[in-house]
């Protein structure tokens, strides 16, 4: 009985808590420890270095703080007298410790501590899913983290996900369209679902936020297909506000996020204030972006069949000269942009605050497109008493994105370029229609779309949280967190009257989606020592989440010119509301033995409103072990000690879940229909399933972290084996069943891989510093089980799910061959290839048809790698980041359509008579031969390049500031690839789970240059 089970859990939780309260405490006094931290090389103060007071002989912290802008810290602790260890860490630098004796003197000052730049990040604090932070060395799973500095420094990154590209090992972050507003797709250790959402869970300051990618208006892929939006909601978070990002890549790490963590978790922590005088900083950036290339078009002067098929009137002029038009310079533009960010932070005794505002305004590389964002954020922390602290944070933002249709949308601007032979002059005035000429193939004139259409997305969003942290005893921390993400997206898609043809009366869609996500967490952590060598950290928690999405759609036709609101003949008015609730409770125990062996075990019990009645509550366990070998007595003296500066071995196992692809699949609800204007309803075609449960992932992971040569070289190596079973699949039923399908927990897939992060600081001199980091990740995805072994589930055009194959392989028709293996051609002139074999009887009727379909390629990369180098030469900082995907295929549908409709240079080949007419143009058979259009999409991008210099001292003071930074940087400046299209990174289907690697008239990712200044006051 689930409720009883839940109650039992709560009871156990209470017992544990009461045990904690009964624990006797030694006499405690209040101490204040002060000091400063500086860079070992330059002796400049280090801001934001972590300072921890360690309990004697343990790894637990009695108190912690961070340094202020002057590198100073003041640490207050209520502890018993004794000898303690102070530990100093900063991301990207080594660790340092100091012994401190706390006795009669309540005010203790320690000498300045120097931290040297090191490649290591082994000792930092991480937040491990939920509950209390832990040191990286204590946990058995890999956690990738990226500092806010790295995120902020990423040039021209409008959104956080762009800023993370190439910085997280095991994360494949692709920009899917070059339209403004940031559309990207993230895969952590491969794709872990088939029908579910493969994008990771996004958590900002402990609040699970919306990362919806359902399109309200279809601008990329066709509305009849799974409609993924060109942009995603992670772009709402300004990179400048991020202090830190942590990534949990699989079940071994994310079990405490339970039934939504199958695709991993990205935890974002926003900036907070520090005690001290107000710090004002202002950053401004100017940017300019261009498309990396144009589509190749037919420039042959003679009229060919491609032209005469599109424009019949040209028929008699076949072979004669004509004028050709390449109007791509009227479509693309040099996109200018500006972004500004102002923040004020500081704090006094017991209070810290951080206030910021940002303003972004940028053009897109396609004319008429652009993106603007206005946002403000505040975070205030108040210490209420010596055992209680409250933090309140909130951010509000508004964005407006102006987009244009692209891809499969027949009105797409680039689609028109691809679909229309170049005899078409879009600037020509059609005097009969009294407007710009219609494209002979598509109808829509691309310049008219730029000038007169509106495709706009307006977002208003509030993210807020309140956190109360109580430490009634020094070893007990109770945290309550309430978080809210309340957002609204209002879109407008206006296609004016006559836009597509003389008969078109116009169309206006104005859908609105409101999303409210609320979560409520209560966590208690108790730390206990048993003797000097044994420590137990116990965490119990309770989590409740509630998501509600309300979508209202309305559309009219027969527009009245001049109106951008709904005036006309109603075409659609509809509403959809979904709600999802989860409730969970978890217990986790972490045992620390002699401060070098750490064992963790936990279990999460979670229920979801989307699970079938018979499967309401689910367990998600985890265990992990971490062994810090270098702490082993005798290690330093051993042979290993001579090789390794540090060495840690770790292993973890965990389970997570994935929500079913619909909130209400456990119910049968009738659908509305209309009959002759009369309201009707009909039964759903989906058969219900009472046994529907979450998709379940089980992950094993093993790894080693080591550093060498005095921490100058560090390595993290991880092997993982993820198996996700109970995948929800739509099992098609026989048409005669009266149903279309039923969702069942039936599939299984695996992701196995290795991740390697190598970092080094080869040169560390005053005048020259060089840091380098290589990330390498290899993932092998395999579909282990489907409903039937013979099943092929095709998504969109070609991406298929086939047992024994990686997810989303391209599966399509190949050249038919005869017994000798030669390609079979159709027809006497041997031009069009036959995409199928049709056997006919003597009377011409068809006997049998054989369509050859084969696996043609795999969009999943064999491996991803990135190489980052930073140089500091006499204060000039140079950063170079290369980011590559190796071995993934791309389906070049841009080329396919350009050949078929005759806009490509191949149409010119035909027009010149270098091949038989119909080889490319309107060759319906070749058009089906997808084999022809699969290409290797391997690429390496010069993702980031930056040169910066910071002016301090007199020069800066003369400007009235503490320091000024100047930076010239670029993003995606160059791509090395053999791919024949413009950009192999884009995807027509954006963040779609399975349909990936399809290039179809999608806006290429721009090359962007940035000039930036930042001032600190």
């Amino acid at each position, binding site marked *: 009985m689930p409720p009883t089970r839940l109650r039992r859990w709560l009871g156990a939780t209470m017992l544990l808590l009461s045990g904690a309260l009964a624990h006797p405490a030694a006499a405690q006094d209040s101490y204040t420890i002060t000091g400063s931290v500086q860079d070992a090389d330059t002796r400049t103060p280090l801001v934001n270095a972590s300072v921890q007071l360690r309990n004697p002989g343990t790894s637990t912290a009695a108190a912690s703080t961070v340094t202020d802008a002057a590198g100073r810290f003041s640490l207050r602790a209520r502890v018993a007298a004794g000898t303690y260890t102070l530990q100093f860490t900063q991301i990207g630098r080594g660790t340092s410790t100091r012994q401190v004796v706390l006795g009669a003197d309540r005010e203790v000052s320690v000498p300045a501590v120097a931290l040297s730049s090191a490649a290591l990040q082994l000792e930092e604090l991480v937040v491990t899913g939920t509950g209390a932070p832990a040191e990286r060395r204590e946990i058995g799973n890999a956690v990738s983290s990226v500092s806010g500095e790295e995120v902020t420094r990423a040039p021209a990154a409008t959104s956080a996900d762009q800023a993370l590209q190439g910085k997280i090992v095991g994360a494949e972050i692709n920009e899917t369209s070059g339209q403004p507003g940031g559309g990207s797709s993230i895969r952590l250790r491969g794709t872990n679902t088939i029908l579910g959402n493969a994008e990771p869970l996004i958590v900002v300051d402990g609040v699970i936020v919306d990362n919806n990618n359902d399109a309200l208006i279809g601008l990329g892929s066709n509305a009849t297909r799974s409609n993924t939006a060109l942009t995603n909601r992670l772009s709402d978070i300004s990179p400048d506000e991020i202090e830190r990002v942590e990534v949990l890549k699989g079940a071994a790490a994310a079990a405490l996020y339970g039934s939504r963590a199958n695709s991993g978790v990205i935890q974002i922590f926003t900036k907070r204030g520090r005690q001290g005088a107000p710090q004002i900083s202002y950053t401004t950036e100017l940017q300019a972006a261009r498309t990396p290339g144009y589509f190749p078009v037919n420039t042959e002067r003679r009229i060919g069949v491609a032209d005469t098929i599109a424009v*019949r009137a040209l*028929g008699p002029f076949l072979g004669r000269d004509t004028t050709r038009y390449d109007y791509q310079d009227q479509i693309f533009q040099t996109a200018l942009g500006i972004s500004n960010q102002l923040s004020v932070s500081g704090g006094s005794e017991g209070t810290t605050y951080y206030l910021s505002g940002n303003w972004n305004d940028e053009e897109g590389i396609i004319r008429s497109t652009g993106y603007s964002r206005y946002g403000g954020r505040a975070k205030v922390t108040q210490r209420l008493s010596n055992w209680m602290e409250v933090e309140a944070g909130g951010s509000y933002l508004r964005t407006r994105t102006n987009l244009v249709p692209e891809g499969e949308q*027949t009105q797409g601007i680039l689609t028109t370029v691809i679909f229309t032979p170049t005899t078409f002059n879009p600037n020509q005035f059609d005097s009969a229609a009294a407007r710009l000429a219609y494209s002979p193939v*598509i*109808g829509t004139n691309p310049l008219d779309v730029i000038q007169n259409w509106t495709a706009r997305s307006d977002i208003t969003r509030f993210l807020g949280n309140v956190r109360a942290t109580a430490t009634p005893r020094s070893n007990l921390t109770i945290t309550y967190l309430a978080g809210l993400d309340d957002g609204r997206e209002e879109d407008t898609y206006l296609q004016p009257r006559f836009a*597509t*043809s003389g008969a078109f009366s116009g169309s206006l869609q104005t859908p609105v989606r409101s999303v409210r996500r609320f979560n409520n967490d209560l966590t208690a952590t108790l730390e206990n020592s048993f003797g000097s060598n044994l420590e137990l950290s116990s965490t119990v928690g309770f989590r*409740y989440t*509630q998501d509600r999405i309300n979508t209202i759609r309305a559309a009219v036709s027969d527009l009245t010119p001049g109106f951008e609101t709904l005036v006309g003949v109603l*075409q*659609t008015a509809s*509403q959809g*509301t*979904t*709600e999802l*609730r*989860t*409730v969970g409770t978890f217990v986790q125990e972490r045992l620390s033995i002699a401060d070098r062996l750490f064992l963790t075990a936990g279990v999460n019990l979670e*229920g*979801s*409103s989307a699970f079938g009645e018979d499967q309401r509550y689910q367990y998600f366990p985890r265990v992990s072990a971490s062994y810090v070998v270098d702490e082993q007595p005798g290690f330093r003296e051993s042979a290993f000690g001579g090789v390794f500066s540090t060495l840690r071995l770790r292993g973890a196992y965990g389970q997570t879940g994935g929500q079913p692809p619909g*909130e*209400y699949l456990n*119910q*049968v*609800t*009738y*659908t*509305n*229909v*209309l*009959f*002759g*204007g*009369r*309201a*009707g*309803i*009909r*039964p759903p*075609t989906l*058969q219900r399933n009472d046994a529907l449960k979450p998709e379940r992932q089980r992950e094993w992971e093993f790894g080693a972290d080591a550093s060498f040569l005095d921490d100058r070289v560090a390595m993290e190596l991880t092997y993982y084996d993820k198996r996700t079973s109970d995948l929800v699949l739509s099992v*098609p*039923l*026989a*048409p*005669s*069943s*009266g*149903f*279309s399908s039923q969702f069942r927990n039936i599939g299984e897939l695996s992701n196995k891989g290795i991740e390697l992060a190598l970092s080094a600081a080869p040169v560390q001199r005053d005048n020259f510093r060089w840091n380098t980091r290589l990330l390498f990740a290899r993932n092998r995805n395999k579909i282990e089980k489907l409903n*039937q072994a013979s099943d092929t589930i095709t998504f969109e055009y070609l991406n298929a799910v086939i047992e024994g194959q990686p997810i989303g392989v391209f599966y399509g028709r190949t050249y038919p061959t005869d017994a000798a293996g030669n390609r079979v051609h159709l027809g006497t002139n041997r031009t069009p290839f036959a995409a*199928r074999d*049709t056997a006919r009887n003597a009377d011409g*009727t*068809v006997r049998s*048809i054989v*369509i050859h379909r084969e696996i043609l390629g795999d969009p999943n990369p064999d491996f991803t790698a990135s190489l980052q180098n930073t140089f500091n030469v006499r204060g000039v900082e140079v950063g170079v980041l290369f980011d590559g995907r190796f071995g993934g295929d791309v389906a070049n549908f841009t080329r396919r359509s350009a050949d078929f409709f005759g806009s490509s240079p191949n149409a010119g080949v035909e027009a010149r008579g270098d091949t038989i007419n119909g080889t490319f143009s*309107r060759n*319906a058979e070749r058009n089906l031969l997808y084999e022809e259009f699969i290409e290797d999409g391997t690429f390496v991008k010069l993702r980031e390049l930056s040169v910066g210099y910071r002016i301090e001292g007199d020069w800066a003071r003369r400007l009235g500031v503490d320091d000024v930074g100047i930076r010239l940087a670029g993003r995606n400046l160059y791509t090395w690839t053999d791919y024949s299209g413009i950009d192999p990174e884009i995807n027509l289907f954006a963040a779609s789970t399975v349909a990936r690697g399809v290039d179809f008239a999608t806006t290429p990712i721009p090359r962007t240059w940035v000039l930036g200044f930042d001032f600190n006051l």
Partner: protein
Amino acid sequence: MSFPNRSRAARRGRRALALAALAGATAGCSLDLVNPNGPKEEDVLNNAELILTTTAGLQAQYADNILVFVRASELASDQWSTRPVALAADVSLVRGTPDATFGVVADPFAATFRISRTAALLRQNAPGVPGLSRGQLTGISALSRLIEAMSLGHLTNQYERMPVRYDSAGAAVLPRAAARDTVIAWLEMARAEVLTMTPAELTAFRTRVLDSSAGANTGINLPATIDAMLARYYLFDGRYTEALAAAQRVPLTGAGSLSLLQYPGTQMNPLFQYMSLGQLRYVGARKEFFTEADSADRRPTFWADRVPSTANTTTGTPDSAFSFRTYGGTRADPYPVYLPDEMRLIQAEAYARLGNLTEAARLVNEVRTQGRNLVTGACTLNAVEPTGCNPPLTAEQLDTEAEVFRAILYERRYELFNQGLRWEDLRRLAAYTTDRPSMQFLPFPQSECDRNPTRPCAT
């Protein structure tokens, strides 16, 4: 009583409050959420109002699927063609090369058996629902049988074998002739039920469920449609006496001469939608529909628009295709479930089969010359019915069986465009024409082979 314990009491009070808050939070998180986007099945099947609404929905399930029901027949015969941007599956119907996995092959099955399931749910549950009148119960039963029979009837025109009713556990597959017998049996059951309804009950059922407008021929005319379908399938089944009798029961003018499915407001005529999907026009009337008509015949332009003439220059297959005009030319166009001249032509064919060529010839000429003033030759066109305005055929032109059947085939082609009957006509009257469909039948759908637990394709 003194107050030394006040602070303790206050603390206890605070604790109680905290516990209450926790309890409140827990109570607020019930995981039993009800889908707010529609009524639950349990509610629908126990509520008179919702049962009647489902009955309206059943008609919509038919009306929204007319494209699926007639598409293969029109494309495989010489009625429709595809346009240059058409879907490969549609082109395959024109060429006679559809794959058993294609949607165009499985769609009619899926539509029919979903209709069958709704019809069965209604017939099973309606009798137990309080608040439904006897007339409503009889009407629901008869209407659900009629719609089931009409859907299955379309299948019998397109496949050699098929299940006759939905069955989630595995439907049995019957040969076409047996399925057509089932269609006729259901129609006769529906007819018997309707005959028990009083005129008042019938009128009440019509206004409540069948038709929401005032038009004489809007919506499904229950008795007339049952008779029209009986006439159609008795004819196909070779039971000419019954076909003749049923056809004669259908009024040729006034109420009941037509049953027009309506697509007002946001609804859209599915034929129009497919013919005019944005700029991508998938299908249209085939060029030969115009070129093979008699020169004076006004019916081709009743059904389709022979402009723009440029479309005519397209060569090869897929052929040129012209936009539909009546009953598919605009989004709100109604769709006729049957046409009065189908009843005349059924009678003509039945008479001819039964040996009465004179009566058959009279009916053929009646259809052929409709709208024509036989004295002046002037033509009066009709907005709801195709009018041939042809000069009559002479007695010598219709004095052999072959001539009569050839004439009937011609008349049916131009009277019954978009009705999904041409394919069946070309097979039934194959001896009297050289026109051949691109294939004889649709292949048995692969999805039905693979997923029907009775393994209907196992050999």
